[in-house]
């Protein structure tokens, strides 16, 4: 049943002095939209605590767009931390929105951000706290329409049963279309089923309840999805894609939190998409084509954004900021304008060559924080397999340049468990780190305290990538390989950190298993799993027990390889990159043949541009 819209802050207020970080629940931040007149009310929810969710740019973009629409108001909600959630359950206080403190279950439309696989139990937790029926197909007619979108919407099957609709691709424009569609349908008083049908006709919108899962000899054991007969839903939902970033508002982020959040700064998205073609990278495949904002727009936006927010730091964000064809000149201009006001410009990732270091240096990122690079693999052979087009010479030049520019700390990101990986590749990681440390001592002198931190993640095969058919390493093998790497590292300036193999295994299982995954998610939540992305909250034991509850084994799921021509659980959704391209890329990987970046050379035939009627949009020549 739809709950009444009413301000329930007075129920929360007495709890504030009893919980950690009460400012998570205060709202009324600078820049928040206080007038929430509706009459159509949308609530966008990030399924983690406020401090993690607030900096999310996707939410900021949708919030800004929806609140500009006539007759539509948009609020935010986050998941209360465990202490607050406990008090709320004890006192039957439902999950509330931030701006008006209304029950989330009173909204017309509730949207979730699918930030990564591990938020799945938090979504169940949020719906449960809100008092919204978990499964879309069991929801009462007047309950909110619950939708989702975001980077992890690809293979959303393990959470799909909770959503009336899932948006694939860019949210701009699409979110308004969805809201308008639901609004009109509600005004007409049509059924939920009819709302599904209408939503399924919008570009990029996937309505899970209109599909059946079929398992047969052409598929993996997780089956594939086909539209229900007579549903009118498309056999394959292709993502919604905006042709140009230039036409979107560059300063989407307007809310300035009181709480110190994870990324406490202004973010301006300077380009979307990355065509470097790393074969493990889901974002690289699903955010194509590359769309750059022009320099003037970026410079204007940074100045305006800083003025209205009062931030003293601005991050120029994207998947590969230093690839922007005008990055160096943008940094130069911004630095000239802003340094007197004590403003820092940061860039999230550096290119692994001396050019990248130059840009980091001109961004005046803190020397103390050090520089971060991602060679991903420890040997040229394996880097060719994954199509990480950097050479040992690039790494060497970057390191030399960084140390010469005053940096003393270097952080290197790697992955282990990549297809075709051998012990030699792993030892290569340690040797590469030691070599970088040697360069540091050579450039800075023996007495300088040079450190090289390496962080090694476990490779998780993701859908819609050339490695989607691969299996993950079994736990024991992961641990063995970690030891191989550790033993190879003797230099005391090198510090090795691993990602937790168990967490990666859960992520891997969820990335493979299609809609059956929902049974696992539910079983895990029932066993108390939530906030699984928090290392102090994650319990592998609970996840393993949950899998056993439904007769499955996590390792068995995550480590399975799929046939190259099998129908996959996510084949009914498409980011525009063709399956043929991914298969070709897989074959090239096995042969160790690299594929160039289409923004630097020519089209490599991924299929996105013809499929979506778009093209790479560059602001200048890329170097």
């Amino acid at each position, binding site marked *: 049943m739809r709950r009444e819209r009413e301000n329930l802050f007075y129920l929360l207020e007495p709890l*504030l002095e009893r919980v950690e970080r009460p400012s998570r629940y205060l709202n009324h931040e600078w820049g928040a939209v206080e007038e929430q007149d509706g009459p159509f009310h949308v609530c966008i929810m990030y399924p983690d605590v406020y401090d993690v969710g607030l900096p999310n740019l996707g939410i900021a973009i949708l919030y800004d767009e929806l609140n500009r629409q006539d007759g539509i108001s948009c609020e935010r909600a986050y998941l209360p931390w465990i202490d607050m959630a406990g008090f709320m359950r004890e006192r039957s206080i439902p999950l509330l929105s931030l701006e008006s403190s209304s029950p989330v279950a009173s909204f017309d439309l509730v949207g979730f951000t699918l930030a990564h696989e591990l938020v799945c139990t938090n979504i169940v937790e949020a719906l449960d706290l809100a008092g919204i029926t978990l499964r879309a197909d069991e929801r009462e007619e007047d309950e909110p329409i619950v939708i989702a979108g975001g980077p992890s919407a690809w293979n959303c099957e393990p959470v799909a049963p909770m959503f009336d609709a899932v948006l694939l691709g860019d949210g701009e424009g699409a979110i308004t279309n969805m809201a308008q569609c639901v609004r009109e349908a509600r005004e007409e008083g049509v059924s939920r089923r009819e709302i599904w049908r209408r939503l399924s006709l919008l570009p990029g919108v996937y309505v899970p309840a209109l599909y059946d899962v079929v398992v047969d000899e052409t598929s993996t054991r997780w089956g594939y999805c086909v539209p229900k007969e007579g549903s009118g839903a498309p056999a394959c939902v292709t993502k919604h894609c905006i042709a140009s970033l230039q036409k979107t508002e560059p300063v989407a982020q307007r809310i*300035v939190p009181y709480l110190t959040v994870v990324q406490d700064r202004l973010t301006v998205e300077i380009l979307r998409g990355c065509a470097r073609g790393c074969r493990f990278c889901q974002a690289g495949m699903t955010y194509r084509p590359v769309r750059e904002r022009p320099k003037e727009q970026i410079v204007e936006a940074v100045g305006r954004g800083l003025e209205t927010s009062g931030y*003293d730091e601005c991050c120029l964000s994207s998947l590969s900021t230093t690839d922007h064809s005008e990055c160096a000149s943008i940094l130069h201009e911004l630095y000239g304008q802003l340094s007197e006001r004590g403003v820092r410009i940061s860039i999230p990732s550096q290119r692994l060559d001396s050019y990248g270091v130059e840009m980091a240096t001109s961004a005046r990122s803190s020397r103390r924080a050090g520089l971060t690079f991602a060679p991903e693999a420890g040997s040229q052979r394996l880097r060719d397999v994954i199509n990480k087009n950097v050479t040992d010479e690039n790494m060497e030049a970057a390191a030399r340049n960084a140390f010469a520019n005053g940096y003393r700390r270097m952080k290197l990101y790697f992955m282990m468990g990549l297809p075709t990986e051998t012990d030699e590749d792993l030892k290569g990681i340690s040797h590469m780190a030691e070599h970088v440390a040697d360069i540091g001592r050579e450039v800075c002198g023996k007495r300088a305290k040079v450190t090289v931190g390496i962080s090694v993640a476990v490779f998780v095969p993701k859908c819609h990538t050339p490695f989607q058919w691969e299996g993950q390493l079994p736990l024991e093998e992961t641990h063995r390989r970690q030891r191989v790497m550790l033993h190879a590292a003797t230099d005391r300036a090198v510090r090795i950190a691993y990602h937790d193999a168990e967490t990666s295994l859960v992520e891997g299982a969820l990335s493979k298993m299609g809609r059956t995954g929902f049974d696992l998610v539910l079983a895990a939540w029932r066993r108390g799993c939530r906030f699984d992305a928090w290392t102090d909250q994650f319990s592998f034991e609970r996840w393993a027990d949950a899998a056993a509850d439904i007769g499955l084994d996590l390792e068995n799921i995550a480590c399975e390889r799929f046939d190259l021509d099998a129908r996959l659980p996510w084949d009914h959704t498409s980011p525009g990159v063709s399956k043929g391209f991914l298969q070709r890329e897989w074959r090239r990987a096995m042969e160790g043949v690299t594929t160039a970046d289409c923004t630097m050379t020519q089209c490599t035939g991924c299929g996105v541009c013809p499929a979506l009627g778009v093209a790479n949009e560059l602001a200048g020549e890329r170097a």
Partner: protein
Amino acid sequence: MSNDAGACRLRVRYVKEGRLAHLGHLEVMGTVLRSVRRAELPFEVSEGFAKRMRIQFSQALPVGASSVAEYYDLLMPVRLDAQEALDRLKAATPTLLAPQEARVLPRRMPALEAWANRALWDVDILGEDVTPDAVRDGIEAALQKGTLEFMRGTKPRTLDLTSTLVSYELEAISGGADDDGGRGVHTRGVHLGLDTRVTERGSLRPAVLINAVLGRAPNRVCRLSQWHEERDGSLTSPMSVG
């Protein structure tokens, strides 16, 4: 820079009210810093690689406490009209932290935090069984002892009460308020006025005192004013200095 003829400090009194009483000191400072930038006031930045705004705050207000007398000094490279600065700050600050007064003062002055060493507090302790006598007995017993023992986090602490508690006043609160919307808010209890002093060895937080003498938290704590105590015991207000 700081030696320039126009260099000065802008002293601002602001409030911390309503739900924003739950903000911690760092959160308040962060918000003020951003308000100053939004107001586009001129400010000095520190030397060195990490350039930071030069601003000084009065003593941290505990989380949960509200106030009508918080202060900061913004070091400015050029003089600006105080009223104009105040107007611009008001427009750029959340209402519940709104600046109330501003004065331009000389550049060189003692730092606010150590200088404003006296404060008046307003404390409400609600409950049917809370009486002025009970609170008085508790405070007097603590004064007799001379020190207050309490826990900060997991660490035991001792505070000299005779030097940090200057005086107090008690008043009964008795019902009458029907405006609680039927939410069952207590309307009986005690209203406590505290005059406290910051010494080298510590400062008295009202909630710590109440917790020590009554074993419970107060319902409302509000800082009413801050002063500087001169050697002769006379008091100077931050806004009437100089």
